[in-house]
């Protein structure tokens, strides 16, 4: 069962690549029981923040804690945290089943659970097919299956809706909400504001690596006509890459 204390806690998290400040003194807390949307323009530092939480990148200063601990100190991390960062991050020559089993084995998870998760994300029929032939949407589903393998209390998804058909988009929305309803902590990044408004309860907005807003969807949509209007107004000053003249 998910950990009751599933919390992601960022404390003055900072990441510098050479002269570029990708994440700049970022502090916020993600709590269990609801979906927290993670928004920001391209290059705002969302993916870097997730990599820092997972210990893939080392912070220049500050800390990212999961359940009060550094991710790298967790002995069987897949049982506490599940993550989907990059749907394409898999060896194309491996079957879906073997891809998941390679990951499952490291955390003492057996092939039965792998089959169960393939069933849950709707890929049971292609379990033995090479993932190189999968569409982006199928890879997203496989990545979600990987994140759920250890039944973790904390889940992070970086743009999981990309490449999914309308049916898949609806499926992700329902999945996120049901995972949150089970008491899990969900951090979800997406650029689709209408989708985010339907899925998330809390919103964290970042721009140029800094925290811009940390509010409930309800608060934002009270002050602005829609979540999209709120997002555009709040991030107007932090666009790193945008077309001119609009």
């Amino acid at each position, binding site marked *: 069962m998910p950990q009751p204390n599933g919390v992601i806690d960022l404390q003055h998290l900072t990441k510098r690549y050479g002269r570029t400040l990708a994440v700049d003194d970022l502090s916020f807390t993600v709590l269990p029981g609801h979906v927290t949307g993670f928004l920001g323009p391209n290059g705002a530092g969302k993916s870097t923040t997730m*990599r820092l939480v*997972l*210990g*893939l*990148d*080392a912070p220049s200063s500050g800390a990212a804690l999961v359940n009060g601990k550094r*991710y*790298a*100190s*967790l002995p069987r*991390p*897949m049982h506490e945290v599940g*993550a989907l*960062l*990059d749907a*394409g*991050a*898999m*060896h*194309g*020559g*491996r*079957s879906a089943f*073997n891809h998941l*089993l*390679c*990951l499952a*084995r*490291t*955390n*003492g998870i057996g092939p039965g659970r792998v089959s169960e998760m393939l069933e849950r994300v709707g890929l049971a029929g292609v379990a033995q097919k090479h993932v190189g032939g999968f569409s982006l949407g199928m890879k997203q589903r496989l990545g979600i299956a*990987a994140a759920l393998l250890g039944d973790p209390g904390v889940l992070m998804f970086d743009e999981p809706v990309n490449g999914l058909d309308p049916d898949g988009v609806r499926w992700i929305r329902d999945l996120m909400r049901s995972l949150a309803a089970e008491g899990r902590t969900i951090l979800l990044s997406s650029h689709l504001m209408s989708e985010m408004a339907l899925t998330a309860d809390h919103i964290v907005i970042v721009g140029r690596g800094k925290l811009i807003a940390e509010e409930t969807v309800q608060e934002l949509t009270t002050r602005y006509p829609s979540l999209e209007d709120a997002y555009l107004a709040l991030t107007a000053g932090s666009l790193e890459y945008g077309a001119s003249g609009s």
Partner: protein
Amino acid sequence: MSVLASEWLKIRSVRSSHLTVSISLGGILLGLGLAWMAVDMYDHATPAQKPGARLAELEEVVLMVPQLCMGVLGVLATTSEYATGFIRTSLTAVPKRWPVMAGKSVVVGVIALFTGSAVIFATYFVCRALIADRFGGLYQIPFTDKLPLLTALALTVPVFALLGVGLGSILRTASGSIVVLVGAVYVVPIIVGNLPQPWSDLLGSVMIGALPHEITRDTTTNTVYGSLLPPVAAAAVLVTYALLPLLAGTWLLCRRDV
């Protein structure tokens, strides 16, 4: 143990692993073909030519096939994870990181040990059977006298494989790692062989190709390399070829952002 099971599945679930092992074993067929050609030439030579006919030990000739293939297997075991981005998923599952390298090394090393031994010993026995007493009794030396050298030759194959794993982890690209692997092992010895003395013998003695003969103090074959190292030192150099890049690669893996 669980990481070892994972690394074993990673290796056996991709086609390149099966391919590199198969091509390695194809070295036995190469040895068979060369032995057959040698026998044919010898039998068609005039009685006057036969006493002077010379042949290189064919198991040493075909050794480069499993050496290179298992080196490539080692390189791909690490670099394919970087090329696909799978390394990030792998390290998310095993955030301590070093067990991933340890698991890979054990799996690749054991596969290379079995493959290398199979190629060396099978080629030796094929040649022994085919060549019989031809070429001045080259294959008439008792097997027990050849056993130490054959074993040392077989051991160079896992050394190549682990060198590949280490290089792959340091350089993170397959092309770069394979260039270094081939360069260090086949180009550098040629350069060393052409250096003036005493450098040719000094440096030639630490080339991988020289080490099996030095380790076993083998006198049954001629070597193109230097032979200045005593057995223990030669064994230490062979182990260093495998471990030094591996340790450097592990150290880098544990410190780098991925």
